[in-house]
């Protein structure tokens, strides 16, 4: 049985999480190797996840930290 491009896309999240059952995974791979569009889509979908996970958690902006410290001062006092 062939898989359509829409069906392929619906399965991406389970594929990425390694949750496809073997039979479906085989159909998925079969479609991927024969459909350049879906192959490219899968790569970019996966890259989107990986690059998002590289997002830095920048430090608190200095002015935000200063205001928070001021408002929480009675509770922070005596800390290290």
């Amino acid at each position: 049985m062939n898989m359509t491009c829409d069906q392929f896309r619906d399965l991406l999240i389970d594929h990425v999480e390694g949750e496809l059952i073997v039979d479906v995974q085989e159909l998925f791979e079969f479609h991927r190797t024969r459909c350049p569009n879906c192959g490219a889509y899968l790569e970019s979908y996966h890259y989107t996840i990986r690059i998002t996970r590289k997002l830095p958690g920048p430090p608190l902006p200095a002015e935000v930290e200063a205001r928070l410290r001021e408002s929480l001062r009675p509770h922070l006092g005596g800390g290290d």
Partner: protein
Amino acid sequence: MTDPLPPPADADDPGPLPDAGSPVTPEVVFRDYAPRIYHIARRMLGNDADAEDVTQDVLLQVIRKLDTFRGDSQLSTWLHRVTVNAALAYRQKRSNRQRRETTEAADEVLEMASAAGPVKRWAVGPDEPVLAAEQAAVIEKAIGELPVPFRDVYVLADVEGLPSAEIAGILGLSVPAVKSRLHRARMRMRDSLAPHFEGGIAT
């Protein structure tokens, strides 16, 4: 073809709190957790001032209950939950003020590029991505443009790295609902990022 997903970026992850031998003081909580609380709230609310208010509320709650926590994982889980709840409550208050901004209606309605069209291959290598500042800005902007229900799930899953079951618990959703929203959010993010990463047409 696709490698297992790496863990989320942990450059700012304070890691476990000090073990039982080191007292967890309010100052330690502030130093180690305030940035994470602030950035979750900022990404969920899309507004720096609101994120600051939420951060203050959450820190106050954490500090007041500090002596009830025994382990870092317990505190970390609770902290995510309280931060999300505080952000959701803040959003609700704000939308009441501004005349309702429905979040439910947007659910399940997220237009995607058709699967029938050509897909350009991205000009990226197989190695672990290295995030440039301008790319980070593009991704942050795309996150900010996600409709709210999808943004919440995307931030918690793909930025914070929480598992679907935990997100379901925090947001009061079923796991399938979380996965459905996450998948749609990822596809929308992919479409938003595509112009910045595309190379030639897939061959």
